């Protein structure tokens, strides 16, 4: 089959129930977004696993590099003062 006629890859995100974020569950191939949605329903929510589905063409996603030592994440590495546990508060101070 010519590459142009091959169905594109869609990534699928499912909201499990109200109050939760959509979570990535996998991918599938479909001719267009509408078919991707229908196939995602049949493939990833056969047992009430979702109340809402997003499909995104995989090529539309921009991702950071997966490297563990990626300097991209360095800015948050040395900022311990962003965490509440950085601060010593006496035990007798309530509600903090």
């Amino acid at each position, binding site marked *: 089959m010519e590459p142009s006629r091959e*169905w594109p890859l869609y990534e699928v995100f499912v909201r499990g129930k109200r109050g939760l974020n959509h979570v990535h569950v996998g991918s599938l191939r479909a*001719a267009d977004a509408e078919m991707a949605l229908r196939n995602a329903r*049949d493939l990833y929510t056969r047992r009430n696993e979702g109340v809402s589905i997003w499909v995104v063409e995989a090529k539309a996603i921009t991702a950071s590099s997966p490297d563990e030592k990626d300097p991209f994440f360095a800015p948050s590495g040395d900022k311990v003062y962003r965490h509440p546990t950085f601060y010593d508060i006496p035990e007798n101070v309530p509600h903090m």
Partner: protein
Amino acid sequence: MDAADTDARTGADARLADFERTIERDQRIEPRDWMPDRYRSTMVRQIAQHAHSEIIGMQPEGAWITRAPSLRRKAILLAKVQDEAGHGLYLYSAAETLGADRPELTARLISGRQKYSSIFNYPTPSFADVGVIGWLVDGAAICNQVPLCRSSYGPYARAMIRICKEESFHQRQGYELLMTLMRGTEAQRRMVQESVDRWWWPSLMMFGPPDAESTHTAQSMAWKIKRHTNDELRQRFVDMTVPQAAALGVTLPDPDLRWNAERGHHDFGEVDWSELKRVISGDGPCNAERIEVRRAAHEDGAWVREAAAAHAAKRARREGEAA
């Protein structure tokens, strides 16, 4: 050796060390991580063969959908076979994260270059086979698959978690079907026993050759893409199944099967490994038929895939013009 060469080598060594440390810490390897070529190709092969097994596995039971004896059994069987299609698709999706090409995997299956589980090359002449497949074949698959939920390759492990949740329904509906038959007439009970007699040994073969002959085990264990040896899993399956068979009232066709108090396990007879070799290498009762059906489905569906792609292209073009 010049400086650039040294840099390249220490870079490669560092990446390998990172990879090994991730596995050692029981963390998951994710799609865009660096990984050794052999890890990648082993994973692609393992996932693809697993995906093919799910897809081919639809056929032996699928044959009974139109002939199931009640609407209840038909609906259950339809749901089960649909699940197996889903399992295949989760797994092809996982294989794609490693750079595998989905149409290419299908081509490899159809041309016989990639294998699928030998169990699906046996025929299903009786409706009791639907129950026995659920009980024994899905049961053995569960034994194999539960440890794979901790596979070092993230997308595979996640697919396995999803699959294992669904397999439990498969096994229970099969066992319930058999219980119903066992409560029926003498002929129905004989039908169950006859089916168990045919499926028992091929189910034991699902765990692969004995450890002494298994070629990939050591490396796969080190990479944590396999967590137990074939013989360990086979033993676990036998131990789990014996009391289930007793509760059902059927006899497992092995005169050497007995409890060994010293080992704390059941002893069982030697599997006919020459049969496994024969079936894997293409000479099982249904190998040719399974591949032929898959090929026909793929080729007969080509015009649908092409029409859908043409329709999508036309719509995209019109939307472009309207904008």
